[in-house]
């Protein structure tokens, strides 16, 4: 019965959209959606992987960009590190609703074992499914095992803490995957139900005004950089080990590690370490010639014969896209002192 109704509403919604999007500006009977996670976009969390609007084997986010992977039917919001995940980042209900289902027993080990083999966990990992009425549902994936703080049947209000961000299911970095669905259809909350890339329709974002203002589209993400006095590993940067303020004087070298998402051919990256006088100690310029979903890079400087300086060293990273729909430059700086 309810499925029949949903079909009618979908039909109407699509029909209305194709006639006059403006008439839908009341956005039907749906509540606006707030962020599914307790963080500030662009500061301590980033949208990495938008919703895929392209047919099979192609990728296209709602802007025409490529910040996503194939068949991604939701929005991923990443947090800085596994360290932040262990400290605990709250997952929040995006609107008032009722808990329909939970799963809370998947270990936080991602989906690939040490040898690169797939581990067969449910893709969504530990999860909460909320029903907001009128067939609108939201699902929260990859949550931390043992963190889900609601039970089936619980009523929750917008912003209610339902658990913590984790690393369970099909994932290799700590993030929350928000899937919005209307009946059987998965919806991109940046454009609302019924929108298609070539429809000519105006997107009807489902977000609250706060989220609409904060979620400025990023075609690529220069996510993190950090210094280590030991050996740089990708794992160490993802783990959050390279956010120290000081490095012991015993260190033989200073290494600046960088993590960036969605590099395109032609993108230019500069990584540089300078001392306090502004002198460049090491610099690398890279022009990419391929699509790279996740790029790690590190550069090192050896301890000078006279020993480390007592004032701070600075790492500069920039990633620049000169052409395309979204030319942009993102920059990060990191400072480090060496103990004397």
């Amino acid at each position, binding site marked *: 019965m309810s499925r029949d109704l949903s079909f009618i509403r979908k039909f109407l919604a699509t029909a209305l959209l194709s006639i006059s999007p403006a008439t839908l500006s009341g956005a039907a009977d749906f509540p606006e959606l707030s962020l599914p996670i307790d963080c500030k976009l662009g500061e301590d969390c980033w949208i990495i992987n938008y919703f895929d609007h392209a047919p099979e084997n192609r990728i296209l986010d709602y802007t025409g960009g490529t910040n996503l992977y194939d068949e991604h039917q939701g929005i991923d919001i990443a947090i800085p590190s596994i360290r932040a995940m*262990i400290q605990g980042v709250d997952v929040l209900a995006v609107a008032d609703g009722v808990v329909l289902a939970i799963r809370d027993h998947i270990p936080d080990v991602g989906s690939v074992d*040490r040898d690169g083999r797939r581990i067969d966990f449910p893709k969504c990992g530990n999860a909460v499914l909320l029903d907001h009425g009128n067939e609108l549902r939201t699902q929260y994936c990859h949550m931390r095992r043992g963190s889900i703080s609601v*039970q089936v049947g619980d009523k929750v209000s917008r912003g209610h803490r339902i658990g913590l961000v984790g690393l369970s299911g099909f994932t290799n970095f700590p993030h929350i995957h928000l899937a919005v669905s209307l009946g059987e259809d998965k919806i991109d909350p940046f454009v609302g139900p019924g929108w298609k890339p070539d429809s000519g329709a105006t997107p009807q974002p489902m977000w609250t005004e706060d989220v609409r203002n904060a979620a400025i589209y990023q075609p690529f993400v220069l996510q993190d950089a950090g210094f280590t006095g*030991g050996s740089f590993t990708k794992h160490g940067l993802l783990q959050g080990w390279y956010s120290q303020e000081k490095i012991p004087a015993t260190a033989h070298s200073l290494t600046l590690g960088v993590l960036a998402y969605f590099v395109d051919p032609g993108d230019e990256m500069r990584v540089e370490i300078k001392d306090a006088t502004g002198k460049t100690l090491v610099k690398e310029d890279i022009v990419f010639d391929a699509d790279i979903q996740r790029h790690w890079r590190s550069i090192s400087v050896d301890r000078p014969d006279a020993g480390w300086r007592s004032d701070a060293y600075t790492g500069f990273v920039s990633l620049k896209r000169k052409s395309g729909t979204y030319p942009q430059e993102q920059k990060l700086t990191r400072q480090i002192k060496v103990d004397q």
Partner: protein
Amino acid sequence: MRVVRLFFSSERRIRRQLANLGLAGLIGTLSAVSAHAETPPAPDLVFPLDCSVATNCVPLTYVDHLPGPGVRDYKCGLNAREQSGLTHIALQSLADVDRSIPVLAAAPGKVRGTRDGIRDEGPEYRDADGKSPPFCGNAVEILHQGGWISRYCHMREGSILVKAGDDLKPGNVIGYAGWSGNAPMPGLGFRLKQEQTVLDPFNGKPAGESCTTTGESLWSGLPPSLSDYRDIIVIDAGFSSTPQPLLPDIIRGYHRQSSLPVTAPSLVFWVLIGNVRPGEQRTLQIVGPDDRVIAEQKHLERDASPVMLLHTGAARPEKNWMPGTYSASVVISREVNGQMVHINRHFDIEVR
């Protein structure tokens, strides 16, 4: 025996004074007439982990002083690993590993060698060939005066700062604590050895030498909380809203809520204890703000385990939890050398 011990003890003191006066050369002469003439004097040691019992660490296992089967630590207690010369200082979780806890050179010396590249996944780690990690994990060895070698085990992957040949002063940072190799908990394994002699830094006596002989600690300036001996070691305790907290998650650093909502699906109290022996008796209890017992668990242990997670708890009542302070307690009785030893610890949580 007593005379020899007194002599040995006063000799250490004299040696230290001579060393302080820059007269280390005299030490050899003194050693030649000492009861342990064949073994050069051990260096005084800085505690090799920059941690505190109040916040993040506890000595979990000491050097084994019992030759043959069974274990005896330097206090004749059971906090040792079979035939092991490592002192293991445990951190409470991998969250402490993330905080970069410095590992310090225990005495002046030259770096003899290092090993790195092993993931911080404890004994469960398997390399690309499916092999278990080397026991000591990521490690540094330092050569000191008199041929003494200090070894630092289980360090964090990529954290080792020093290289073979580096000259180090006591207290120099050589890397950070981790969980590589065969250790029951994240932390640091430390060993001091000369030829075939492994010394217990807590009493200056060789491994395998009876725990009933007393000696002098090699540590200098060790805070009482780290030198205090505990018969029963509580590594950490906490509260969670999940009915079944699991050991790997506790080691990761989960389930340490400082408060719980009245809607929490469960209210669970957990305790992580070390060196569990068969026959020990335990009671865990949670008492609500109205002084009613909401959960209780009594257990007579059948197994031995280097670390064990205990927990008790209850599911949310129909009308949510009563707000207020919930008090949990853990009582453990263990037989050590024919004597019963006990602990009784309390932990509180606010439910709002």
